[in-house]
């Protein structure tokens, strides 16, 4: 067949490979959505229906009572107050931890971006290592240290621990972001009479909004999903949602209420999920940020 004379826009071509590719992506998406589907469906069934064992079947009549139980009546051992206590504990732990670690990390990163001593690369390598060392190594010394300053098993204690563990990575991210800001911008601000804090709050921080969003999301999901530190440092009254979820799911008394377990799990996971959905646009913008020319 003679090739058509090329003229105007190139015609779109649909090949078998393309179709195969999309088919594969579709199947893969279904595969990964299946657990979520099962969880939602199961949480809406009654225990009688669950016992039938059709885990992929839709509920006969959607029943939200498992959700109500999970939120306000599920038992952890002998206490039956639901996961809402854990929810509010997690909020009380996560919000201040994120705010403090992001703010202090931003100040640190800004200061370090201005300060370029000899051996700076070694220092930043150490900082990076600080963000990568497994938490388990720190646990025992950290418990002793917190006990010594009377913060062990307290809300302030668990917040402090999260801030400390978050800082290396947050500082590094902000430092690398601020290093890309042209030096002349700082000089211009100094000629205009601005000092360290004024430059930070009025020029650097507004520029770093995409970075603040990304770092906040990383910190938020990390701290919300934390189990180990919450279990060790928070104390009985401040156990985060993840720990309480575990207590509900692993309770051994009587029948396992799968519908309540599923509902409680979804409730725990929904917060970080919502954060991603609501700020996805900002997340992409922050990750691709580098274009600070202006």
């Amino acid at each position, binding site marked *: 067949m003679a090739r058509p004379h090329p003229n105007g826009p190139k015609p779109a071509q649909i090949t078998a490979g393309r179709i195969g590719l999309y088919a594969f992506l579709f199947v893969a998406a279904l595969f990964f959505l299946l657990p979520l589907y099962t969880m939602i469906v199961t949480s809406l069934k009654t225990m009688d229906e669950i016992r039938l064992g059709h885990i992929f079947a839709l509920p006969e009549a959607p029943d939200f009572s498992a959700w109500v139980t999970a939120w306000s009546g599920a038992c952890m051992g002998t206490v039956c107050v639901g996961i809402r206590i854990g929810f509010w504990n997690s909020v009380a732990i996560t919000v201040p931890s994120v705010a403090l670690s992001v703010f202090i990390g931003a100040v640190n990163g800004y200061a370090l971006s201005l300060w370029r001593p000899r051996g700076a690369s070694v220092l930043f390598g150490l900082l990076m290592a600080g963000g990568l060392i497994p938490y388990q190594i720190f646990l025992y010394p950290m418990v002793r240290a917190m006990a010594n300053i009377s913060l062990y098993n307290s809300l302030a204690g668990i917040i402090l621990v999260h801030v400390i563990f978050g800082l290396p990575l947050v500082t590094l991210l902000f430092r690398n972001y601020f290093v890309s800001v*042209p030096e002349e*911008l700082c000089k*211009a*601000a100094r000629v205009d009479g601005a000092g360290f804090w*004024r430059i930070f709050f009025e020029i650097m921080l507004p520029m770093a*909004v995409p970075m603040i969003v990304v770092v906040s999301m990383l910190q938020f999901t990390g701290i919300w999903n934390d189990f180990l530190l919450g279990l060790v440092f928070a104390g009985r009254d401040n156990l985060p949602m993840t720990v309480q979820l575990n207590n509900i799911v692993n309770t051994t008394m009587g029948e396992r209420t799968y519908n309540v377990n599923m509902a409680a799990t979804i409730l725990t996971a929904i917060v970080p999920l919502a954060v991603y959905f609501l700020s996805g646009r900002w997340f992409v913008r922050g990750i691709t940020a580098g274009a*600070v020319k*202006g």
Partner: protein
Amino acid sequence: MQSAVSIKDLKIAYGGHTVIEKMSIDIAPQEFLVLLGPSGCGKSTLLNAIAGLQDITAGEIWISGKNVTWEEPKDRGIGMVFQSYALYPRMSVRKNLSFGLRVAGLPKAEIETRVARTAALLHLDKLLDRRPAELSGGQRQRVAIGRALVREVDVFLFDEPLSNLDAKLRNELRVEIKKLHHGLGNTMIYVTHDQVEALTLADRIAIMRDGVIQQLGSPAEIYHRPANLFVAGFIGAPAMNFVEGRIERASGSPVFVSNGLAVDLSGHSFRALTPEGPATLGFRPEHLVLDGVASGLPVIAGRVSVVEPMGADAVVWFDWAGQSLSLRIMGDVTLQPGDDMAPGLDIAKASLFGSDGSRL
């Protein structure tokens, strides 16, 4: 008369490397001084030191009769414009202009008046509520200039302000800066590596090399009477022609001799007593006259290698004694590569340099 800016025995060194060694320079009020030199000659470092953004090793800096050596940039009475514009990206043009005034805590009404006045001067009125990202390069640099003007200070510092702009905008803004200087009458210190900017803008040019001022003088002086070989070669496009030779004395008058060329130097005004010995003769392309025989000037005969028409004038390159020399003629040229030519040298305008490179 008191100097606007005075630098006394300034030395700047970091990490064992001396950038500027014992520099002294006085800049008169309302003067437009251009610091010109190749990259790494220390001109930007000097400007940053005047602004107070660069630590100095020794010496003093005086601005408007005040010793500001230890003062913060904001207290020195300067405004500065940077090459990369350095506008605050998250602030509107209005906020950019007023930032320094807000930091200084000026009353709101005063800030508004000053911003309005500056915006009108630089035709920024309609752009006040835009962000820097929504401006073109030329507009951004005008905002940067405005940010310096709004401070209403005596001394403005420019650090290669036009280098990021395209050729057309550069020419437009150059004229605008010159007009501003005429209108405002402030002292301006302007760093550039572009000799056209230097020659067109400056009252005086300081040509720097390796942290040392090679020559400080008016554009005409620098162009017509370069102090040494470096200045002579740096200024002018195409560059000055250099011919190595000797100065000898023949029947009482000095003569420059090189490769069969003998030029009578009695028309040249030497700085001191006529020296003898090895020397370099420097002449610009326009110091050659096309028809040397008819003009009665010393003839440097050669063969045309390249012709570069530039519209208003043309540069003709020809070979003489194994080196390529250039000649500038006005209007259209009929010469072709390969043609023989015999241009004459106007020795009164030429320069002579001794074996140490300095002007004789």
